């Protein structure tokens, strides 16, 4: 189900398969929400009751906002609940969004984001996730539109068995385009698991900066954390910065990280061309191949389609 927020107009209330989605005035009356989140008026609350599993993805679509716009999403997934949510941005000016996700025991949250703002727009986002026992949260983000974008992500794995998988892809292609990723994953408890895979393709004079930090608290024994960040530069003037960090205070943990910045392999390019594919087609195939593993991690068909549509547009320009 798609909820379109056109020119900043938030619908007051929705009901999807028994789940309530509220705009602020109604939500204020609901005692279930933490007081701290009643900070502004542009807030969307999503509350998934215990044991409710939403089959179809929810889709928040922001369009055509032509003035600076602030938005706040609060998602509470109660025990044993399941939700798939896609945030999609297609605005013309400045978008500023804060998303908070609370995943209770055994909850499953699939959170995806497509940042496809206008090439003159800016996008500033902050995502914070709190997870309880055995909860699983999947995050996928595609960042490609805005002239300047910043993504702050903070993950807190509070209880045993919580797992968070983060995937992201950022194809940048404009001269002035800039993207920053700041990701913090905090392992507070034993047997928690996190995984990060972010890939960027940078063309022209675009720039990206990635900082991913995994922090393992003293109590968080037997955790697993993997982090990788890879880049493909298509021009000599593109710049990709990558700074993986690990800070570990617990014993017996399994942590890895890796970062690369590379170019198209000339041997692979020659191989494809020697078989008859022209240069443009070969480049397209090789860049698609670079992105394939991270894109394949998105299993939801609806979101996959939205991503493919966005990328097809990107390729045609």
């Amino acid at each position: 189900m798609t909820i379109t927020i056109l020119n900043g107009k938030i619908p007051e209330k929705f009901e999807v398969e028994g789940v309530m989605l509220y705009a602020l005035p109604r939500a204020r009356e609901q005692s279930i929400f933490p007081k701290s989140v009643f900070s502004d008026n542009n807030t969307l609350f999503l509350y998934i009751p215990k044991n409710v599993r939403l089959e179809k993805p929810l889709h928040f679509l922001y369009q055509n906002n032509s003035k600076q716009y602030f938005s706040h999403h609060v998602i509470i997934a109660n025990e044993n609940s399941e939700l798939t949510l896609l945030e999609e941005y297609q605005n013309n000016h400045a978008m500023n969004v804060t998303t908070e996700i609370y995943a209770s025991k055994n909850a499953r949250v699939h959170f995806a984001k497509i940042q496809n703002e206008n090439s003159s727009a800016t996008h500033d986002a902050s995502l914070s996730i709190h997870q309880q026992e055995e909860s699983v949260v999947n995050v996928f983000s595609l960042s490609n539109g805005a002239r300047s974008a910043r993504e702050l992500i903070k993950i807190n794995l509070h209880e045993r068995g919580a797992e968070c998988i983060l995937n992201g892809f950022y194809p940048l292609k404009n001269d002035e385009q800039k993207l920053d990723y700041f990701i913090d994953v905090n392992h507070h408890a034993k047997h928690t698991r996190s995984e990060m895979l972010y890939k960027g393709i940078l063309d022209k004079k675009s720039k990206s900066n990635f900082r991913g930090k995994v922090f393992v608290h003293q109590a968080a024994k037997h955790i697993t954390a993997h982090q990788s960040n890879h880049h493909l530069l298509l021009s000599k003037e593109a710049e990709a910065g990558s700074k993986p960090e690990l800070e570990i205070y617990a014993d017996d943990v399994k942590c890895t990280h890796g970062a690369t910045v590379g170019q198209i392999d000339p041997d692979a390019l020659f191989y494809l061309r020697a078989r008859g594919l022209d240069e443009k087609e070969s480049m397209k195939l090789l860049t698609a191949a670079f992105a394939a593993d991270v894109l394949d991690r998105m299993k939801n068909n609806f979101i996959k389609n939205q991503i493919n549509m966005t990328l097809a547009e990107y390729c045609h320009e």
Partner: protein
Amino acid sequence: MLQIKNLHASIQDEKQKSKVILRGINLNIKPGEVHAIMGPNGSGKSTLANILAGRAGYDISQGEIIFDEKNIFTLAPEERAALGLFLAFQYPVEIPGVNNMYFLKAALNSLRKQRGLNELDAMDFLTLIKNKIKEVCLNESFLHRAVNEGFSGGEKKRNEVLQMLMLEPRLAILDETDSGLDIDALQTVAKGVNSLRSENRSFIIVTHYQRLLDYIVPDVVHVMVKGKIIKTGGKELALELEAKGYGWLEEQVVVS
């Protein structure tokens, strides 16, 4: 079909110093002929094969490459492929993320398009490739894997031969396709080549060893040493080389 006239080529090494590899190569290959080029390591055989296929990075100071009466010197690799040139790589490249079957279909259709033929649809292509893959004794599962990724040495070479069978070139250059192969794979490669042999298709077989030539009987054997073809003969020359090594020919080069 192919004429190489007085070809001189050099490359720049890591220290930006120019290093001469080919010093005046002359070759004339007629339709239907199989030429073997033999020679010790570092004699320039692979360089010649790569230059023919259009790899960048060589400085060609002199000479001509005429394919079907056309100078292909300025043509891009894909344009040479469209004319019917095919290089079976000495080291086939692993390309993670590119599906082998997709790649073959794109390559075949790209060549067909450049040759003014209609593109094959999925069904026709599938029928074709399922037949061809049997000929190189590869399991169909290889079609669904990424191009050459994680293939063994022998599987990579079989995959090269599969591509050759699919693309049906007019001139195929096999660059040490026999190196690192066991006897079964060697016979498969030879079978693939022999099945394509015809009046208007030619082959250049680049190899160190005479072994492959037991299975693919050449019309002409050339010996290349230090960037020059120093001896040309019939298939019996290969046997002579096998018995005597390259030493006696290299001495002749020094003397002359």
